[in-house]
C-alpha cells in the first residue's frame, strides 16, 4: 500500500509557463487550506497559543496521561474534544426520488461516526483500567450511538485498523490506543491523516518520551473538579500540558469542561479547596 501523494506538480515542465504554475498552485492551495482546517477548543487562551488556531483536523495528535492513574482524565479529554467535532449540516433538497434508499440511509447514523480502536487486552503497561461506559460518555456530552468500537488482538492489527479507518475518510475522527510507536510508523499515520483530512488521536502510555510525527502531544493530568455551593461536582477539570507542538510553543493550562455547551473554560478558583471541603462535610452531615 503506497502513499497517495497529493498530486505532484511537475514544476520543471511548467517552469516556462508562469501562468500555468500559478494556476496549478491556485488549484492546490485551497485544498491545503481545507485539510488544515483547525478544530478550535473554544478557549481563546489555548486556541491563540496553537499555531493554526486549534487542533489541526488532518493530523496526528498524541494524548498521554500524566501518570497511570490519570488515564480516565486522558479519556475524558479525548471524549470532550471529539464531542466538539460537530455533525455536518443537514442535507438540503436533493435531486433524487423521495423514497430512495431510505432503509439504507436509516441503518447508519447520519452524523459521521467516531471510531475507537482499542486492543482487546487493554493498553499494555496499564493494569486493566476498565472499558468505556456508554452512560459516562453520554454524561460527558458525547452521543454513544456515534461511536464504533474496534477491538484488535495485537499491535499490528491496531495499526492496520487505524490506517484503514483514516484512509477511508468515513469517520469524523479516529482514536487509537497504542503502546509503542516508532517514528516511521507515526509518519505513516500522520501522512494518512493529512491525506484524508481526518484527525487521528492516539492514546499513549504515560511513559511515552520518544519523538513522533504528531502535530501535538498533550499530557493530561487530573485536577480537582469544579463544585457548586452544595459541594456537588459540576464540571470535570483537567491539567493540560501541551508538551510538544509543531510550529508552536508548549504551554500549560487547567481547564474545565462544560458537557452541555461542549466548551472548555479556564478553571476559576484553582486552589479554593477549603470551601469545597467544608461544603462537602456539610452535605455529609445532612445526609447522615
Amino acid at each position, binding site marked *: 500500500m503506497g502513499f497517495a501523494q497529493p498530486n505532484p506538480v511537475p514544476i520543471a515542465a511548467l517552469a516556462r509557463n508562469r501562468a500555468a504554475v500559478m494556476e496549478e498552485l491556485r488549484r492546490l492551495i485551497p485544498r491545503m487550506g481545507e485539510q488544515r482546517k483547525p478544530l478550535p477548543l473554544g478557549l481563546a487562551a489555548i486556541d491563540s497559543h496553537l499555531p493554526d488556531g486549534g487542533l489541526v483536523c488532518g493530523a496526528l495528535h498524541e494524548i498521554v496521561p500524566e501518570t497511570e492513574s490519570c488515564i480516565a482524565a486522558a479519556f475524558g479529554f479525548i471524549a470532550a474534544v471529539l464531542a466538539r467535532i460537530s455533525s455536518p449540516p443537514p442535507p438540503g433538497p436533493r435531486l433524487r426520488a423521495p423514497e430512495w434508499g431510505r432503509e439504507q440511509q436509516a441503518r447508519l447514523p447520519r452524523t459521521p461516526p467516531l471510531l475507537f480502536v482499542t486492543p482487546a487486552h487493554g493498553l499494555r503497561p496499564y493494569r486493566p483500567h476498565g472499558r468505556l461506559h456508554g452512560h459516562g*460518555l453520554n454524561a460527558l456530552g458525547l452521543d454513544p450511538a456515534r461511536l464504533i468500537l474496534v477491538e484488535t488482538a495485537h499491535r499490528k492489527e491496531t495499526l492496520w485498523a487505524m490506517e484503514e479507518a483514516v484512509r477511508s475518510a468515513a469517520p469524523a475522527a479516529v482514536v487509537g490506543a497504542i503502546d509503542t510507536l516508532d517514528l516511521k510508523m507515526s509518519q505513516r499515520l500522520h501522512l494518512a491523516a493529512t491525506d484524508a483530512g481526518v484527525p487521528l488521536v492516539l492514546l499513549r502510555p504515560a511513559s511515552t518520551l520518544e519523538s513522533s510525527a504528531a502535530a501535538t502531544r498533550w499530557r493530561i493530568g487530573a485536577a480537582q473538579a469544579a463544585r457548586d455551593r452544595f459541594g456537588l461536582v459540576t464540571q470535570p477539570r483537567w491539567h493540560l500540558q501541551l508538551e510538544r507542538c509543531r510550529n508552536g510553543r508548549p504551554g500549560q493550562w487547567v481547564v474545565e469542561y462544560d458537557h452541555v455547551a461542549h466548551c472548555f473554560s479556564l478553571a476559576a478558583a484553582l486552589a479554593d479547596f477549603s470551601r469545597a471541603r467544608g461544603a462537602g462535610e456539610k452535605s455529609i452531615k445532612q*445526609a447522615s
Partner: protein
Amino acid sequence: MNEAAEAAGLATGDLLADARAKAEFLQVRDADPVADDAALRRLALWATRYTPTASPWNEDNGADGFFLDIAGSAHLFGGEEKLLADLASRLQKNFGLSARLAVADTPGAAWALSRFHKSPSCVLSSGQEAAALAPLPIAALRLKPETRSVLRRLGFKTVGSLLDKPRAPFAARFPTELLRRVDQALGRIDEPLVPVVAPPVYHALRYLIEPIFTHDAIIAHANRLMQTLVHVLTRDDVGARALRLCLYNVDGAVEIIDIGLTLPTRNVSHVARLIELKLEVLAATCDAGFGFEAIGLAVTCAEPMPARQTELTSAADDGDRTERCASLIDALRQRLGPHSVRRFEPVASHLPERAEVLPPIDGEATAWPEPEQKPRPLLLLPHAEPAEDVTALVPDGPPRRFSWRGVTYDITGAQGPERIGAEWWRHREPKPTRDYYLVEDSAGHRFWLFREGLYGRETAQAQWFVHGLFA
C-alpha cells in the same frame, strides 16, 4: 467394506476373532463416528461443485453417502449420465473411492438404487420408481431394524410385496415410519434435504483448466464471478448482504470464505477487496496445496437495493459517506473478525454493568436517552474490585480514605449516596443493595465507589468496591 476386505471374504457383522482368522493382515481401529461425520461433510462440501444443495446422510440413512439435488444443474455436465460418470471418475481419482451412484426423482428411490441396484451407477427415468423398487429387498426402504425384522417374520421379502397391499392394516400395525418411507420413495410426500451449507440465492461457478495458487489469481477469478452475479443482481434490483466464496482444492478439500456486508452491495471492487483481506488472514492457516481447480461465488443473502442516480451536484455527499462508512465496517470485520466491531446499545436497567451492551454492529443504531443528572463514570471496571482499609465517619456514611490496587487515597470530597437496588425479578436469592458514592482525592482522581449491603437489614459487615473512574 473395501475391495481387499471383500476379496478376503469378510462381511459386515463378523466378530473380530472370525475376521482376524479370515484375514491375518487386518488392522483394527475403534470406530470414530464424529470423524466419519466430519469426513462425510467434507466430501459433501466438495460435491457442491456439482450443485449448491448437497446433503450428507444422517444416521437414519446409514451415514455413508450424500444426496445431491441436481435438478437444473445436470445439463451443465451434458446430462445425468455424464454427470454420474464425471462424479465417479473424480471420486476415484481424488479420494480413491469407488462410489455407487444413482439418479432418481425422489431421494428415497435414489438411496435404494444406490444400495441395491446391480450396476454401480444407474439413472432412473421419471415415474418408474414403483417398478424399479419392486424387486429390491425390504432394506431398500431405510427402515429401522425392528420394523424390518417384523416384516421379515410376516413374510415380506421385497418392496414389491408391500406396494400392492392395502395401506390401512399397515398403518394400524406398524409405526408411521413404514408408510412414510414408502411414500417418500414413491414421491407421494416430500422429503426435505438438509444441505451441508445454506443454499445460495444466486450462484456462479467457474472450472479452471489449470489449478490456481496465488492470491491475485483467486481475486481475479472472484472478480469475474462477481461481475456475472452483478448482472443478475441488477436485473432483480437486489444487492448482496452476504457472500460465500468456495475454493475447491485439487485434493478434494474445500476452503470456504464467508463475507458479510453492512449494506447491500453490487460493487465488484469492494467485494474483491474484502476477499483480499480475508485471504491475507487465511494465508497463515490455509494451504493452497496442489492449487484450486474450481472457484464458486454465491450470494447467500440478498436484500432489495433499488437503482439510484449518481449525484451530479456535490462531491461530499451524505449517502456517499454512509457507503464509505459501511465499506469501512465491512473491511474491519473481514480482517478482525465479525465480533470485533461493536457499538454501544442502551439497556433499560439501573445496574451500571447491565445498563449497556456492546453487540457487533448490525443494522440501525439505537438512539440513546438524554443523559440523566446522575454521575456516571467514563471508565467502568469489568468487575467491581474490592476497596480495602475503607474508613468512614459513620458506618453508612461516605468513605474518607480507601486503598485500591495498593495505593491509598485520601478523599477530599464525596457525593452521594445513590442507592441502586438489586433486580429481584432476575435472581431467586436476593442480592444486596448498593450505595454509590462519587469521591475525589486530593490529587483530583475521581472514583465511583459503592458499599454493598445495607447495615442492619442485609449485612453486618458491608464491603466496599471500586466500580469506575470518572474523567
